[in-house]
């Protein structure tokens, strides 16, 4: 996909993004100097455990950080820095250019409005569609996300749908304006496994048909494996490794990535015990001065506790002084 692209500028370019929150106990550094690009039609996974700052990246892109949050750096989209766009201009990009799928389908739909109104208002706003056209578009999108009997269910309220169906509606919302980029923030976390698979397949189909770029934010490596071209591993708000998804699975370069993979059950060797990563996630009260993973890393040497390594390497980049392949 990247090679066939004539336009060399990436669709979205995030540079040195940091997100901090002012809390009662002082500043929390949720995201630290994160940089990445997404090309048109690319599928990027952002993987990390809870608290790694992955959702905050998506919220920062949309300008939806909580009130006590503050983002610095640059988020370039269409030659404009989203972080410094006035709200009115940002509102023209939200949903129309960048759609977002939130993780909790139970609470992210308005319980007091019909599905039809919640979908239709998006195209009424951005495309000036008439009520009737907007309704038609809502129906099309409901069909596209495979909600059975969509016509009859347009005027239903969110509580009349199951969790999986609601997640489809949330996805439908993101699709209303055919955005160029979709941020999917844990789109399957709230769902049971069989529904997860359906939703991921649906997302994949839509992505293929419409050529939309997707940022998939998840803690579930299994979801990433079959879906994304490129994977970005986040820990303590820092990028640990960025590599093509296949090579992440075949040959993880960062000890943290290796640890994550070992913590996933392997169907070919069910007897093998799961290896948890010892220790607990870092406190994010201070900006990291050294590798945030060093205190939990079995391969760490003294230098690891003192320096913050750069993201380095070609093709497969990792921020590590002693990457896995050097050790073996």
């Amino acid at each position, binding site marked *: 996909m990247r090679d066939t692209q004539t336009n060399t500028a990436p669709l979205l370019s995030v540079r040195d993004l940091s997100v901090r929150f002012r809390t009662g106990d002082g500043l929390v550094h949720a995201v630290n100097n994160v940089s990445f690009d997404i090309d048109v039609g690319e599928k990027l996974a952002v993987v990390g455990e809870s608290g790694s700052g992955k959702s905050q990246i998506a919220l920062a892109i949309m300008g939806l950080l909580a009130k006590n949050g503050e983002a610095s750096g640059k988020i370039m989209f269409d030659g404009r820095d989203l972080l410094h766009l006035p709200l009115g201009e940002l509102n023209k990009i939200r949903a129309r250019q960048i759609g977002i799928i939130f993780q909790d389908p139970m609470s992210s739909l308005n319980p007091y409005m019909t599905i039809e109104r919640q979908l239709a208002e998006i195209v009424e*706003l951005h495309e000036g569609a008439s009520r009737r056209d907007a309704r038609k578009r809502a129906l099309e999108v409901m069909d596209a996300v495979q909600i059975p009997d969509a016509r009859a269910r347009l005027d239903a309220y969110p509580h009349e749908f199951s969790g999986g169906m609601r997640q489809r509606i949330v996805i439908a919302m993101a699709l209303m304006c055919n955005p160029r980029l979709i941020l999917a923030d844990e789109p399957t976390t709230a769902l049971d496994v069989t529904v997860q698979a359906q939703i991921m397949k649906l997302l994949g189909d839509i992505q293929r048909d419409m050529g939309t770029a997707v940022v998939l934010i998840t803690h579930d490596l299994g979801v990433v494996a079959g879906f994304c071209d490129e994977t970005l591993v986040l820990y303590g708000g820092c990028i640990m490794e960025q590599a093509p998804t296949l090579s992440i699975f075949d040959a993880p370069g960062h000890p943290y990535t290796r640890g994550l993979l070992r913590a996933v059950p392997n169907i070919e060797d069910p007897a093998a015990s799961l290896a948890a990563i010892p220790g607990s996630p870092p406190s994010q009260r201070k900006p990291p001065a050294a590798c945030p993973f060093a205190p939990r890393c079995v391969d760490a040497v003294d230098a690891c506790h003192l320096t913050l390594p750069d993201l380095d390497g070609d093709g497969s980049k990792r921020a590590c002084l002693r990457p896995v392949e050097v050790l073996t």
Partner: protein
Amino acid sequence: MLNFTLRRLFAVIPTILVLIVFSFYLMRLAPGGPFTSERPLPPAVMANVLERYGMDEPLHVQLWSYIKNIVLYFDFGPSFSQKDRTVNDVIAQGFPVTLTYGFWSAIFVLVCGVPLGIIAALRHNGFWDYTMTGLAIFSQIFPNFVLAPLMVLLFTLSWGLLPGGGWNGGQWQYIVMPAIALGTSYMAGVARLTRGSMLEVLNSPFIRTARAKGLPERTIIIRHALKPALLPTLTYMGPVFVYMITGSVFIDVFFSTGGIGQDFIDGAYSRDYSILLGLAILYSLLTFALTLMLDLLYAWIDPKVRSSMG
């Protein structure tokens, strides 16, 4: 919905019956009676009076004929203390007055309280928020028996703008002060409640979804946040309106409106059984009507409630 309304209306009947029986016996248990006075009446006179009001019969017979008269003739009986007036007369004269300024008071509570709460929520932790919250707390603790004399002092005695009492057929000048004096502390309560629930709603995930759609803030508030933010206020307003009507005794007395509160007080002092019982029934009917109205309003707002009504 119709089904629900009918079911609720039918439930009123047994509840009112229970209420009548309880209040009836409770009142008779209380010491004293409508005809006791410091100088006791001669026994012969007393027997005469009691017979005239049917109080010589056993209690359950009295109760039975009381209920029968209500059901058959909608007659709540004669007043014991006010000669030649029936309870129906008393209510017909006083209740419309109380209801009128109570209604305007409720309008004042909503029209001022809700917008103040919303503005405070939108300016969260700003100047207007602090000013509004401070004022609200102040007026919530400001009892109406302080506020009413103060208002009369200013608006009647100092500036001569409004009449200091009376009713005069319910001209607006006579309604303003009773309505505001009655409503102020509730208005403050509504403002605080609306502010709180608005803040909560504005932080909820579906508002974030609405922002992600690119909707302008004003549309988000009006279209997405207002309905859910008003639900707690609605719940609060039901009982508050009943309180306002029943608790308007002071207002009726202070402003001499001729409202029903004055009769309630007099009735309690003189053990006027039929007035008290009649008013108790009236108030409970009012409570029923309001609760039903609120439930229907709730159903109109919240689709979840609507579908559970069947």
